[in-house]
């Protein structure tokens, strides 16, 4: 047992390398003109999807804790949701004994879309070239083969990234993901939401430090300062809970489900609130599509749809009183 929550040297190295790779291949500026899905090759080559897979399955042998920190960076760079589904789909494939499928996903040659259930079937996120989709029904995650399904294109909120409607009446019943994998999915979604909350905070603070009105940087006014402080507080809250949940899932702790439910309950609201505040601090330019602020907001809405907060009140709290109220 170690009781130090400071990042280790190994963690720092992998995150520094990931940061450099993301800056080179996925700068935010790429989203200003085009709105396609991101190519997954640079991420797959980096080993991003296999980070937490066991070494015998071609993974790097890190854990969900490091993987979550990596996905915070992916969130900051607003990478397509196919980078979120890949490590989860690979786990599902591996769990159901489909090693070849898992390998294809880890290498980025088999693409897995995300999906959200809607009244007439599914909304498919980044599903244009996807071979499979992750489908969540009744808290269970499954892989859906998209080969024979018709996809009707829709105009998307996202970064205008591909969105399709798929009419679906029955779900193919194949093996569902283990509880650990379902929890890991929610941890990674929340990690990306934290990336958005942090990215929006930093963009707003940078702008407030340089933009001048009334002869002073607007960040010297308390009204702006307190908005920024609130963004920092929210990001810190989410970051602390992300650590807590990732470690509980990794360790298979009794309260893992509780910690994940807490995480999912707070993550969308925090990302959305920081994105909104970031737009507000930018003023007029924030409302335009020429600043990046709106990109954070839209991706937050996309990821919020993938978050499944469950029923937190039905779970047992680790802080249940041991003595009755007198």
């Amino acid at each position: 047992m170690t009781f130090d929550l400071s990042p280790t040297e190994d963690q720092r190295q992998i995150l520094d390398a990931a940061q450099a790779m993301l800056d080179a291949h996925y700068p935010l500026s790429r989203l200003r003109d085009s709105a396609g899905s991101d190519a997954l090759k640079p991420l797959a080559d980096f080993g991003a999807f296999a980070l937490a897979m066991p070494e015998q399955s071609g993974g790097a042998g890190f854990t969900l804790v490091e993987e979550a920190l990596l996905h915070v960076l992916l969130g900051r760079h607003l990478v397509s949701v196919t980078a979120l589904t890949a490590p989860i789909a690979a786990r599902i494939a591996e769990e159901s004994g489909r090693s070849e499928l898992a390998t294809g996903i880890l290498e980025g040659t088999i693409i897995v879309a995300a999906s959200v259930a809607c009244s007439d079937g599914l909304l498919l996120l980044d599903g244009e070239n996807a071979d499979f989709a992750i489908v969540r029904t009744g808290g269970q995650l499954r892989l859906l083969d998209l080969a024979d399904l018709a996809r009707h294109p829709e105009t998307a909120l996202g970064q205008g990234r591909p969105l399709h409607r798929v009419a679906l009446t029955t779900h193919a019943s194949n093996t569902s993901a283990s509880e650990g994998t379902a929890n890991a999915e929610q941890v990674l979604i929340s990690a990306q939401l934290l990336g958005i909350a942090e990215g929006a905070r930093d963009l707003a603070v940078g702008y407030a430090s340089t933009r001048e009105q009334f002869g002073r940087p607007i960040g010297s006014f308390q009204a702006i300062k307190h908005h920024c402080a609130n963004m920092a507080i929210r990001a810190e809250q989410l970051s602390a809970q992300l650590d807590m949940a990732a470690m509980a899932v990794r360790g298979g702790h009794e309260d893992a489900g509780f910690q994940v439910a807490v995480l999912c309950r707070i993550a969308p609201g925090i990302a959305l609130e920081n994105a909104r505040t970031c737009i507000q601090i930018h003023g007029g330019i924030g409302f335009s599509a020429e600043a990046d602020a709106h990109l954070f907001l839209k991706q937050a809405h996309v990821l919020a749809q993938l978050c499944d907060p469950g029923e937190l009140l039905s779970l047992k709290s680790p802080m249940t009183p041991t003595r009755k109220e007198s």
Partner: protein
Amino acid sequence: MMVRTSSDQAPDSEDEIFRLNARNWLLANVPDKHAPHEEKTARDFATSWLSNCHAAGWSGVSWPKEYGGQGFSPARLIVWYEEYARARAPSVLDCTFVGVNHAGPTLIACGNAEQKSFHLPRILSGQSVWCQGFSEAGAGSDLASLRTVGRVEGDHLVVNGQKIWSSYAGVADYQELLIRTEQGSKRHKGLSWVICDMSLPGITVRPIRNMAGVTHFAEVFYDDVRIPLSSVVGELNDGWSVAMTTLGFERKTAAMALQLELSVKVEDLITKARPKPNTAMGEKLADLRAEVAVLRAMTYRAVLRGGGTPFDGSLMRLTFAELAQRVHRTAMGIIGPEVLVDGPWVHDYLESYSETIAGGTAEIQRNIIAERILGLPREPRP
């Protein structure tokens, strides 16, 4: 890996055994009665609880062993305070708080051998009670503008001025007193941190009733109070750095108990309200349950993660303050017409208004976060 939080598994490690020992001792020894409000009986209640803890080896949990404490590791401190909260042990924010969590740690860090050997055992056993003398009527959030003076006369300081918001000053034996000892000095310079014996001639205590109707804080007046120079802690005129030594301690370790206690309060509200899923009250309580769990995660991080800056505590401090107020406001909604009758929840609700004021207002905390953590431009100084 992390502190185990499981509650009903067979003990499988030393940490689990530690948790069960703490739980069993607390369940057998926590008093059934709530702490009284009246100052003198509150002192008796608090010091007798502390002395019980002391006799059983559960006092000074965060103090080093060489000073009579338990020297628990950060992880064990968390376990202790989790079990402490879950067993509804008396709030740590009683008249022993300043001694155990502020004056004591300051003496450990900056005091000389004599000061330590005299005061530390008395603090830990509940024999002497301390109060704080920092804030003044004109120096609240802006503490460095304080004006109470100590003039050096031979081997004494002659103190004149007044302090305010000094909790339990009416029943305290000693006070940690921050005064200006260098004539004409400005702001953080020329201050000294002094041990003030509250029985000295020239000290007058005027009790102040708070909005919850109880009198535990006071205004303290000093009229030519002669304090020996041997009571200065650290160097004369270096009091600001002495005061800052324990700021981080207070914000991390001392706050831990109160933060974890809030989780238990939310569990109680859920039990009380029995909300149905998908109702407004159900959603509100689920939000609060999530928020106190997040506060607990922040507590773990603050205690278990190295590095960081002293200002990081502001993020957690502010989260706690505003959340504590929301929890108590929600309680008022759940209790209904009975809120008109004074009771523990109503009392705590009224007391919670101090959370966003004491120890630096929420507004000042936000300035600190924006300027010291995010690096935004400082306020123009007049």
